[in-house]
């Protein structure tokens, strides 16, 4: 396997996303990246699990084609997975979009099936976020946690355990450390 031309590991898009050539992104047309997001090797993003239940608002047809929406300066570590959650609603099974805001860090081998993740959320390694969990802004989820389905995690919480519980609060001094701009700049082909 030495015959490959000298190419960097990351493909950089016009909006500054750095996507590893070894990521496993399925259903690319249904994924929105806000820009400056890093996707490392072996990350799976399931864009093919689209919403099949008709939208309640008929004018909102375009929303139908987004399965995963990601904001700016997010970082997805090696081997993590983003998967739109699915449930039975009014007798019909459907997946629902997975929305991720800005400055969200996801550690290696974590599996995310949340409905909504706010800004400045730090998710550790080997975390399982259950279906339809809602994580608000400035939350830290420690390594190895299992966030149960439908859990709502309030802002400024530290969460850990199996099943996960709120175990503390984010100190004010930590807030600056949750900005991922520096981390983004450190990733590249150089």
């Amino acid at each position: 396997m030495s015959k490959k031309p000298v190419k960097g590991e990351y493909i950089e898009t016009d909006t500054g996303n750095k996507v590893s050539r070894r990521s496993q992104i399925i259903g690319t047309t249904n994924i929105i990246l806000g820009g400056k997001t890093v996707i490392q090797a072996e990350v799976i993003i399931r864009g093919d699990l689209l919403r099949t239940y008709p939208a309640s608002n008929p004018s909102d047809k375009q929303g139908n084609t987004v399965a995963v929406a990601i904001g700016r300066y997010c970082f997805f570590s090696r081997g993590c997975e983003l998967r739109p959650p699915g449930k039975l609603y009014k007798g019909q099974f459907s997946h629902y979009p997975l929305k991720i805001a800005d400055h969200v860090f996801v550690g290696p081998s974590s599996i995310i099936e949340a409905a909504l993740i706010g800004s400045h959320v730090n998710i550790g390694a080997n975390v399982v976020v259950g279906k339809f969990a809602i994580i608000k802004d400035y939350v830290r989820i420690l390594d190895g946690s299992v966030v149960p389905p439908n859990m709502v995690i309030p802002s400024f919480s530290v969460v850990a355990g199996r099943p996960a519980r709120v175990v503390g609060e984010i100190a004010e001094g930590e807030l600056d450390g949750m900005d991922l701009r520096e981390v983004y700049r450190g990733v590249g082909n150089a």
Partner: protein
Amino acid sequence: MSSKRASTMPAPPKPPTSLASSLTIAEHASLTGTHLITLGSNTVVHPRAKFSSAHAPITVGSNCIICERSSIGFQSEASPNERQGVVIQNDVVIEVGAVVEAKTVGEGTVIEVQAKIGKGAVLGKHCKIGPQCEIVEGETVPDFTVVYGNGMRRLDNSGVEDLKLKMVARQIEVLKRLIPSNPAKFQ
């Protein structure tokens, strides 16, 4: 390490397979090994699911959902009483990253994210193995058992298993529409 995707690498020899006609199997699923792999009707195999029949055969019933990164099949030599390999009965859901080396997985059982089922374990019907839970080698888990948290257990006697089976069937209907199937690649 090659920067190419795994699918473009030279394919390992294909194992013998017996695939039902109504099976949905994604192109990026991987079937390896030398023993027979049987996949039943209406079963859905997500991309990047791994079946390895290097040591013993694998039999999957109908109406099952096998999610990505899950790994089905023995990873070491089978003992004489495990010759029939991994048998997964009907309506079983195996979620992301689960490792299943069980001898039998009973009907309607759900194996959640990153759970590990040890070699030769026997799971009863309508069990639920929670995220990251482990069942040790050779263990027998009775019907309706729920394993959760740090290996805690209880019995689920809510009696809603028929509803759960219906839900799996609905989910399969949707997945069949969303996942392009390519059984020809594995035959």
